[in-house]
């Protein structure tokens, strides 16, 4: 087991949680956009964007190649910025979000997992990257 990819070990569990959020966010935003888009367009577009980021991050981590690692790094970073920004805006200017998104209130509706997940993702990507060269030498 010299191969260090983002998909093995703890990464496998992380990807499973990511996949759950990818599925949940995608399904939720699909229903929101299909049934009541005009009620809260901004929130629903953000939901769709969040869903896309989760899907990309899941695939990026699960593929475990060098390119997909970069894809995962970018998507996890976007996710972290997203959850912090949307979280702050939803608390400070609540009328902008008449309906909740995954990232509202820093992901409070999902037990703050949306806030923890990108941090764990980035740490895991870093850790597997750091382990690579040390094994080669």
């Amino acid at each position, binding site marked *: 087991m010299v191969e260090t990819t983002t998909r*093995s*070990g*703890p*990464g*496998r*569990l992380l*990807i*499973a*949680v990511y*996949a*759950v959020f990818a*599925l949940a966010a995608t*399904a939720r935003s699909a*229903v929101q956009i*299909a*049934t009541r888009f005009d009620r809260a367009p901004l929130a629903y577009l953000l939901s769709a964007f969040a869903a896309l980021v989760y899907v990309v991050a899941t695939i990026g981590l699960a593929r475990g190649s060098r390119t997909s690692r970069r894809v995962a790094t970018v998507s996890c970073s976007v996710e972290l910025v997203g959850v912090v920004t949307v979280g702050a805006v939803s608390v400070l200017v609540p009328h902008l979000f008449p309906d909740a998104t995954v990232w509202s209130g820093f992901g409070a509706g999902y037990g703050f997992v949306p806030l923890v997940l990108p941090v764990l993702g980035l740490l895991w990507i870093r850790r597997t990257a750091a382990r690579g060269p040390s094994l080669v030498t």
Partner: protein
Amino acid sequence: MLEPLATGLILAALACAAWALGLVVANRPAGTFTLALLAVLELGLLVQAVIGIVNLVRTDSDVSGVSFVGYLLGSLLILPAATFWALAERTRWGTAVLIIGCLVVPVMIVRLNQIWGGTGG
């Protein structure tokens, strides 16, 4: 919805999650017994999906059909996907994936009951 079945499935899923946690703690791989447990749980979810769709067709109350059917069908995907992902790596971490899968099932059933109960759920 069928309350006893929903409650039974929630308890069964939590029991399976506890079992998987036990395997992780003991560092034992998931064997035939675990797969049989998951298969029984999946069968229960299938029964729930069939009953749920029949009830949805018959009901007069205003239930969000898309979400309801979405959750019913979605709940059937969780365990096979988790099992597939877990068995691909026969380590502790692989088995831990089963815990996640088993914990998602009760959440989905609770949401199903809320949707069925309308806004009062």
